């Protein structure tokens, strides 16, 4: 980034004008993206998701004041680096849940956020923990629309038979994460 843009972003941040700050993040799977509002981490985009589309969505769903400002994402990037290096088994980041549908979907994601590193649950477990044991299909949909993957570990929810099941980043990515955690 140019000096001009750096200075602009810093001043905008001081004035409270950066509603969504984002930065790219290098992972073993490719380049991803992290974005935060003043409330906390709002979006993690996996490497298979086109950055332009992710940013356009954030502009529409949160605020058009979306600016690349890595300084606000230092902690998120540090924790993700450590996670991928196998040096971190939980995240300590404030989260902004606004991109998940309030109600059952969000309850599924919150329940999933409490599944510890290295463990897995089934879609039915996730549905039960969110208060509706028969809604495992809806739980799958909720997990499929997880705006904060990895940090909200939807990859730890698998099929009853032990198959890994679907994943926003593709089943190979889900398998990679579960192997990283020693869960497979």
């Amino acid at each position, binding site marked *: 980034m140019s000096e*001009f*843009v750096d*200075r*602009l972003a810093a*001043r*905008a941040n001081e*004035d409270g*004008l950066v509603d*969504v700050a*984002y930065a790219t993040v290098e992972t073993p799977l490719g380049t991803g993206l992290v974005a935060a509002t003043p409330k906390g981490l709002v979006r993690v985009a996996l490497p298979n998701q086109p950055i*332009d589309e992710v*940013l*356009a969505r*954030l*502009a*529409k769903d949160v*605020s*058009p*004041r*979306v*600016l*690349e400002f890595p300084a606000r994402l230092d902690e998120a990037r540090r924790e993700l680096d450590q996670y991928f290096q196998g040096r971190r088994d939980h995240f300590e980041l404030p989260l902004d849940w606004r991109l998940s549908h309030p109600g059952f979907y969000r309850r599924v994601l919150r329940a999933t956020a409490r599944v510890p590193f290295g463990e897995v649950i089934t879609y039915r477990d996730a549905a039960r923990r969110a208060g509706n044991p028969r809604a495992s299909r809806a739980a799958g949909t909720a997990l499929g629309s997880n705006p904060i993957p990895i940090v909200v570990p939807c990859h730890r929810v698998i099929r009853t038979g032990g198959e890994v099941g679907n994943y926003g980043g593709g089943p190979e990515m889900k398998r990679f994460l579960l192997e990283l955690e020693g869960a497979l």
Partner: protein
Amino acid sequence: MNAMAQALPPFQAFLDDHLHPVRAFLRGMVGPNDAEDCLQETFLAALRAYPRAEPGNLRAWVLTIARRKAIDHHRARTKGPRPVAEPQQLIDGRTGREGTGSIDGALGMSPRHSEIWAAVAELPASQRAAVVLRFAVDLRYRDVGEAMGTSEDAARRNVHEALKKLRASAAELKEMTR
């Protein structure tokens, strides 16, 4: 119509798209020494107002803000006009293709660039803005008008008047250097 097509782009994309033409405009308006400060003020003001911007013509919208910042800058200044940008800097500040907007061509002669731009600095503000938008930013008259909050015809008249004065200065120069 696709709803996403009319949505505001993320501010970062807006900034990436318009930074260079706005920089070229401000170099023409306030000179290279002060252009960067005006550019900061312009994009900070744009960010502040961004959620209320019309996605239709963001180029004209941000140039309107830049023009106001350039006027504020001139008002705040007690001294006379500053040297405007060297034409090479104006051209460097431009994005993309080399346009049709050569001011030499418009004047039908080729006096030295710096002399032309010194004469541009002497123009009344609205004529200066129009001529810089047309030739340094390479906008069509319709967009010059939009950026200045005037009609296309008024933009044409401003540029026409400006060129008339510039031709006179160029002729004077020629006379002097003969």
